[in-house]
C-alpha cells in the first residue's frame, strides 16, 4: 500500500514538473526558431531553411563583430557592478530605514524603469551638450547611462531578498564584534545572494542588450553589439544576426557553466 501511495504522492509532483517544463518550452520556442534560421544557407532569413550551413557563424567570428561584443561585455560588466553597488545601497536604505521622504526616494530609485530608454537617451545627450560634457560620449557616457538604467532592477531584487533576512542574525554578528561592513560582508550579503545575483544579472543583460540609450551615447568607433546589430538591421534581418544571438546566448551559458564547475555557482547562490 505504501508503494501505491508513493506513486500517488509522486503524481502531483510529476504534474507540477510537467507544467514547469511546459513553461520552459514556452521560453525556448522562439529561440528554437532563431537557432534553426541561424544555420540556414540563404542570404535572407528562411524558416524552415532549405539548405543548411554554418557560414553565418563563420561570418560572426570577425573583428567587426567581436570588437563590439567586447565593448558590450565590458560595458555590461562594469555598469552592472556600479548599478549593483548603488542599487543595493538604495535598497538597504528603503528597506532598513524609516525616514522622511522615504517613499519619494523609493520612487526615485525606481523611476528610470518608468521612462522609455529612448527618451532617457535623448535627454542625457542633450544634458551633456548643455553642460559641456560631450567629451564623455562613448564608453564613459554609456557606462553612466547604463548604470542609471539598471539601478532599479538591483534595488527591487535586493529589497526582495533583504525583506527575508532575519535581523537577529545581523545583531548576532555585531554582537560578536563584527563592524557594520563586516556584518554586511559576512552575514547580510551571503544571505541576500539570490537577490544580488538576480539584480546584477538583470543589470548585465539589460545593459548588454540596450539599444535605445546607447544609440545616442556611442561615439564613432566605439559601438556596442546591439548597435552593431541595429546598424545591420537597416537593411533587414540577416541570418548573420541569428548567429550573433545564438553565439552570445551560448557565451553566457558557457560562462555560467564554467562558474558552476569551478565555484559551484548555483549552490553558492541558492544553497542546497
Amino acid at each position: 500500500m505504501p508503494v501505491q501511495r508513493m506513486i500517488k504522492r509522486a503524481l502531483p509532483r510529476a504534474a507540477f514538473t510537467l507544467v514547469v517544463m511546459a513553461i520552459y518550452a514556452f521560453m525556448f520556442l522562439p529561440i528554437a526558431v532563431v537557432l534553426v534560421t541561424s544555420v540556414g544557407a540563404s542570404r535572407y532569413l528562411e524558416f524552415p531553411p532549405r539548405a543548411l550551413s554554418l557560414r553565418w557563424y563563420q561570418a560572426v567570428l570577425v573583428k567587426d563583430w567581436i570588437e563590439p561584443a567586447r565593448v558590450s561585455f565590458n560595458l555590461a560588466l562594469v555598469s552592472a557592478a556600479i548599478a549593483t553597488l548603488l542599487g543595493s545601497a538604495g535598497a538597504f536604505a528603503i528597506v532598513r530605514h524609516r525616514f522622511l521622504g522615504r517613499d519619494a526616494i523609493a520612487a526615485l530609485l525606481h523611476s528610470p524603469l518608468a521612462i522609455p530608454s529612448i527618451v532617457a537617451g535623448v535627454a542625457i545627450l542633450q544634458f551633456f551638450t548643455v553642460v559641456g560634457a560631450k567629451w564623455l560620449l562613448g564608453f564613459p557616457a554609456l557606462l553612466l547611462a547604463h548604470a542609471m538604467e539598471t539601478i532599479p532592477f538591483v534595488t527591487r531584487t535586493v529589497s526582495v531578498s533583504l525583506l527575508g533576512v532575519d535581523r537577529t542574525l545581523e545583531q548576532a554578528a555585531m554582537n560578536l564584534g563584527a563592524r557594520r561592513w563586516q556584518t554586511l560582508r559576512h552575514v547580510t550579503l551571503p544571505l541576500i545572494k539570490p537577490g544580488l545575483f538576480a539584480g546584477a544579472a538583470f543589470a548585465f543583460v539589460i545593459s548588454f542588450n540596450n539599444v535605445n540609450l546607447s544609440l545616442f551615447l556611442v561615439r564613432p568607433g566605439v559601438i556596442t553589439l546591439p548597435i552593431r546589430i541595429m546598424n545591420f538591421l537597416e537593411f533587414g534581418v540577416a541570418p548573420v544576426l541569428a548567429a550573433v544571438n545564438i553565439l552570445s546566448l551560448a557565451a553566457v551559458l558557457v560562462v555560467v557553466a564554467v562558474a558552476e564547475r569551478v565555484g559551484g555557482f548555483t549552490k553558492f547562490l541558492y544553497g542546497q
Partner: protein
Amino acid sequence: VRELVVNAYGGEYEEIIKATILRPFEQTRNVRIVYDPTGSASADFAKIRATRGDPGWDVVVMTAPESLIGCQLALLERLSEDRVPNQKFIYHEVRNGAGPCGAVQELQYMSLMYNTRNVTPPPTSWRILWDAKYKGRIIVPDIGNILAVYLLFMAAYMNGGDQHNLEPGWAQIAALRDNALAVIESSADMVPYFERGQAWLLPYWDGRAHYYKNRGLPVDFLIPKEGTVGLVNTLNVPVGAKNKELAYEFINFWLSKEMQEKWAQAYTVGTARVDTVLPPEHSQRHVTSIRQLKTLKIPDFLYIGQKRSEWAERWKKIMVR
C-alpha cells in the same frame, strides 16, 4: 593626417560606401575617414537636435525632410555653390526640394514592390493595394515612415486631390488598412514578411527593392501607371562640425560625375546630377534623366514638415484599433 567623421548607411551597405566613395577619397587626399554607421536618418536628426548641431560628425546622410527642418533650426550649414561647386550640376527642382542645407547625392522614388510568384501579371496600378484579391497580402507603411505620406499623396492624386488637398486621399486610408496584412513603421521590418512569403505587395524605395531583388528574393518593382513620388537623400554638415572645409570637399567629391555614376550603380538608386551617363539596364529602373525626373512628383518637403504632426495624429486615429 586630416580626419573626417562621416555618418551614413549601416549593415552590408557599409562595405559598399567604403569601397565606392570613402576609399577613393582617402586615397586621393591625405585624409583618414572615421566611419559611423550608427543610426537611421531620424535617429541622426534627433542626435543633431539634442546636441544643438554638434553630434560629432562632419558629414551626415539624411533625407530631405530632416535636412529642411535642420536648416530651419540652424543646426546645419548651408551648402552653397562656392562651398560645394558641384551643386550647380544638380537639378534645380531637386535642389529646391532639399533646401539650402542639403546636397542631394541620390534620388529615389516610391516603387511598387511585388512578389513575382504570386502577383501575376505584374501590377499596373496603385489600386492593387485596395484590391480585395490581395487582402492580407499587403504591407502598409506607417506614418512615421515618409512612405506613408507618399502613399497618402498617391491616394489623393488618384482620387482628384493633390499634395495640398489630401482629403480624397484620406478617404481611402481606412480601406487600405482593412486590406493590409500589417502596418509597419520601419522600412527594414517590412521585408521579412516578403522573405517568409506572407506579404506580396508593398510600396517601397526603388533602391531597397532593387537590393532585395539582387539578393535573390522573388520580387520585382515598378512605377505604376499613376506615377509616383520622389525621395531626395542629402548630405549635410552640422553647424558644430570640426572639419567643415574638408566636409565640403568630401561632399563635392561625392557629387562629382564619376562618383555619382559609381554610387548610383552601387546603391541601385538614381542620381540628380545632370551629366551622368549610366548603362541602360540601370537607367531604366532608376531616375537618372530629366525625362524620368519630370514624371516624378517632387513633394513640398517644407509643407510636409509643417503638417506631419497633424497628419500623424489623423492617420493613427484611423489605423489603430
